[in-house]
């Protein structure tokens, strides 16, 4: 399904398509890019995009964005995701970057934005805490002013790829007496600061994506406060709004469905009643994707005319993640007995793995995808948002 593109936009799409085909590093085409690449490998594409000036589609031109229209941003997102490229690190590019250029001061913009674009700084997100999952406003990590520093103490968790990070953007409590939402500040912390400890959390798929981050008497210069003290909640909410529409994951789901079809064809004989059952299940998922894609295109077309979907866009997160979870589950089922095996981490081509290549990541993907309905505001929270802000309940 395609947007109705002008001649110029169609030419742009072709340009993006060709650029990806000619420049996406072969080294990054591994079974599971999210877990199988080193930090340096996963930055290869980032650097190529930066050189081309295409790294940060969302950013205004003055900060290094390409100055694209809504339609072109969507085309770029669609093409890169259909081609299965690993997107640049979201924490840096779509999260902290926009917060800094929107709410940060000149010195912060000058210091941080170019380093995000170049890939020099790798950012992670310090939101969740052991006691603050969906209810983020209860963060307890404390920042106490001491001259021109804050002294930060607390424990952040589920911190994705903190093991690679140079910086962490944190929600910290600066006013313990205020109402939960109003005593929070947005603080940038250098991961090399004394008192910062990262401890891996291994998830059920065996991979190391997330971490605990302990902050003990960490001294953070006051100049690393973004915006005003105690206004951090506003900035945090702004940031969450940025990721809504890209959550549909149409390109990814489409790729995984075509792989699933190949697996079913190869693994399940056509005269097996299960074959028909798979065909039907796959058709249902394809139709789910089609309906969501049509909705995404409808919203993009509206955005191009200046109509903001607002909180209704939460539906992309809900449906996009549910659909992808279903695909990974069906793939794991399709691979049959080989679904018992799982790759060991860190991944190495030298380790034995039974069964056909296309099934090697089925188990870990199935397990790993359980996170999708939990993170970024759980799907239950997203439903609360629509219930309240769209349905008026």
């Amino acid at each position: 399904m395609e947007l109705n593109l002008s001649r110029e936009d169609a030419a742009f799409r072709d340009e993006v398509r060709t650029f990806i085909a000619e420049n996406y590093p072969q080294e990054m085409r591994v079974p599971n890019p999210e877990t199988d690449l080193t930090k340096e490998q996963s930055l290869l594409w980032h650097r190529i995009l930066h050189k081309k000036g295409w790294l940060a589609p969302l950013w205004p031109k003055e900060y290094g964005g390409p100055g694209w229209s809504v339609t072109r941003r969507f085309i770029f997102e669609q093409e890169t995701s259909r081609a299965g490229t690993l997107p640049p690190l979201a924490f840096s590019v779509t999260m902290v970057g926009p917060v800094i250029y929107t709410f940060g001061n000149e010195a912060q913009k000058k210091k941080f934005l170019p380093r995000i674009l170049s890939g020099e700084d790798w950012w992670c997100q310090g939101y969740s805490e052991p006691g603050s999952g969906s209810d983020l406003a209860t963060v307890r990590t404390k920042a106490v002013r001491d001259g021109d520093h804050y002294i930060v103490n607390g424990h952040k968790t589920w911190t994705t790829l903190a093991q690679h990070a140079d910086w962490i953007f944190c929600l910290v409590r600066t006013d313990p007496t205020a109402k939960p939402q109003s005593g929070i500040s947005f603080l940038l912390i250098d991961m090399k600061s004394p008192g910062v400890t990262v401890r891996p959390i291994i998830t059920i798929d065996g991979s190391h994506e997330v971490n605990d981050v302990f902050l003990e008497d960490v001294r953070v210069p006051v100049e690393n406060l973004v915006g005003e003290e105690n206004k951090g909640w506003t900035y945090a909410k702004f940031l969450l709004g940025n990721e809504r529409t890209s959550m549909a994951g149409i390109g990814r789901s489409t790729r995984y469905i075509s792989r699933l079809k190949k697996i079913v064809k190869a693994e399940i004989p056509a005269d097996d009643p299960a074959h028909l059952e798979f065909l039907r299940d796959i058709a249902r998922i394809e139709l789910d994707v089609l309906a969501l894609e049509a909705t995404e295109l409808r919203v993009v077309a509206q955005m191009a005319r200046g109509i903001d979907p607002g909180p209704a866009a939460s539906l992309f997160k809900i449906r996009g993640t549910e659909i992808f979870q279903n695909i990974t589950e069906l793939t794991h089922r399709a691979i049959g007995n080989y679904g018992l095996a799982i790759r060991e981490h860190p991944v190495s081509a030298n380790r034995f793995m039974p069964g056909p290549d296309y099934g090697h990541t089925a188990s870990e993907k199935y397990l790993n995808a359980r996170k999708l309905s939990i993170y970024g505001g759980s799907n239950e929270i997203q439903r609360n948002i629509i219930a309240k802000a769209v349905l008026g309940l």
Partner: protein
Amino acid sequence: MDIQFTEEQELLRSSVQRLLRDQYDFEARRKIVASEEGFSRKQWAVFAELGLLAAPLSEGAGGLGGGPLSTMIVMHEFGRHLVVEPFFETVVVAAGLIEQMGSPEQQQSFIPSIVDGSKIWTLAWTEKASRFDFANVTTRARREGSDYVLTGAKTMVVAAPWADYLIVSARTSGDDRDRGGVSLFVVDRRATGVDLQSFKTIDGRRAAEVSLRDARGQLLGVEGKGVAALEACRDRAIGALCAETVGAIGELNAATLDYSKTRKQFGTTIGSFQVLQHRMVDMFIAHQEALSLMQHLSLSLSAGDSALSRLASGAKSKIGDAGKFVADQAVQLHGGMGMTDELNVGHYFKRISSINIQFGDPAFHVLRYAQLDAAA
């Protein structure tokens, strides 16, 4: 992708909306359904006067040339108001087939009296054993002079008691389930040898079992091409039925949301309970997705996309499932009231159930969608 209506389309939509708001509220509809005939010839004349019966038909055949997008606009509003008059059967299905298959003479002789509201048509293709298979035809037609005579039985023919003409599928050659050898015929409903047994349908309409004994029929188009013609007709029909379903879904969601904000239990409105809030969010999402898919299908119908038929099956299944989900939940959330004939909710439920059966149910179409992919 999002449809920005042209001025003409916007005008069509607002005029249908105004008309139905003023003349077709739920009480007015109830009276129409309970009337002797079960539909309103007066309303039908108003539709004709407003140009609705001409809206989607091609200009060459005497229509206004609005195509599938006009159908979508009209059917969406009809779905919101549960309109029972046979626009779908007469204009979308029958006139569509006449446009597609009829000779220029046939078009000139039949379309004007459809457009001006004087004649009502319907399609009689289903048979006892046919289920959703157009090729499963036992009704026979044999040539007699310049005409044909038809013998057989058609079942569950919606709007037949209202119709002046039937388009009947009958076998001119081949065996009972052959794709080839099925042809379409125009049969005067009052002709000798045509016998109707009428009854009511779950969605407040009238239908009939039609028996044909040496009934005269005029061949529509060419011999033997009936199945392909019916398949193309089904794609258009699905576009219309999907739009009607989406209209009904929107009304069910609005009614349910409204009810949840006023109905109190345990000292509070039931809309304050999270389990019901989340249910209504899922109903909202189902509506949004169905609406998008409806637009996508109508645009593809307009453009005559090559993978159209597969898409139509997909939409019939997905939107049918969405309709069923929303209708089930709307009745559930209305509690006992949702079970009453008094409330409109149950009537939407029944219309959606009826749509889901016609031209193939969601289970049939999801398999067709899958198999057309596997065959490609």
